[in-house]
């Protein structure tokens, strides 16, 4: 089929075009919005477990080690890291040792201590040696710096057998 060349100077008097144009504009903007009206600074956010990997291990009869691995461009707030023993049964957390974090000055939240690198928290337990099984509850919260996204607090419940 022969294609006809389009002549220049299409008239603005064509009613059909007038009706279609605003709709097209709307569609174009809608497509832009559907890609999210987020700033084009990061990609899709990681899942909470990918963003902040967490592991807990038993170091000794009275010591637990909690390891946190924030992903690149993520950080964890020091004051949002919390631990509790759920089914106490003679086990208490006596002390929590955490390393110093980096100071983050937030215009709205003030000065905060955050961890951008992997870190460990040491939990010292008070326990009778008869108490063997515990459930440890860890809570922590952090953000993705690039996306400007703060995750909801993450709760992890871990069953442990003490030596």
């Amino acid at each position, binding site marked *: 089929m022969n294609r006809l060349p389009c002549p220049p100077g*299409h008239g603005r008097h064509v009613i059909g*075009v007038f009706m279609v144009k605003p709709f*097209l504009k709307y569609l174009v903007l809608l*497509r832009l919005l*559907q890609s999210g009206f*987020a700033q084009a600074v990061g990609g899709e956010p990681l899942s909470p477990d990918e963003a902040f990997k967490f592991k807990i291990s038993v170091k000794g009869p009275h010591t637990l080690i909690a390891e946190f691995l924030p992903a690149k461009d993520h950080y964890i707030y020091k004051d949002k890291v919390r631990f509790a023993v759920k089914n106490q049964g003679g086990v208490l957390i006596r002390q929590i040792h955490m390393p110093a974090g980096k100071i983050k000055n937030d215009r709205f939240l003030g000065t905060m201590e955050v961890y951008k690198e992997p870190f460990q928290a040491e939990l010292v337990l008070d326990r009778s040696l008869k108490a063997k099984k515990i459930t440890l509850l860890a809570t922590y919260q952090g953000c993705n710096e690039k996306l400007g*996204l*703060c995750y909801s607090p993450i709760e992890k419940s871990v069953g442990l057998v003490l030596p």
Partner: protein
Amino acid sequence: MNISVLCKRSRYAILLIVLCAGLNTHAQTVAAPALTFAAMDGQKTRLYDLRGKIVLINFWATSCGICLKEMPDLIAAWRRYRSRGFEVIAVAMRYDEPEKIREYVRRQGVPFPVVFDQDGALAREFGQVNGTPTTFLIDKSGRRISRTVGVINFKKLRAFLEAQS
């Protein structure tokens, strides 16, 4: 019909087909949940009653610095486009503290409804919102047309709202 009209129409038709096809494949426009938002000041807003308006729903928290930074821009957008049918509802996450929310809303003079999602039901209804800010846009027919996780691009938002008027 002359050639110029045919050409113009076919060009728009092709563009329309491409854009509409894109909409289908992405399937990102979904019906917004039928919800009632109970604001902290007692005001109730049914999403259904906002048909015919563009509604922005912003999940936020007083512990989220970015959210606090964005709120004045959201207020400004609401003030500018409200008369053209733009509504904003701010939903504070369940882990927030009501007193802190009230204090912030009072201090900032937030003029639109602010809801405390105490049991997390709204976050679930909107597909497990698990971070802030997360922002949804609902079109005039009540369909959810976008979900933004993280910082809002207000330039893009304003362009969209301008195109609505």
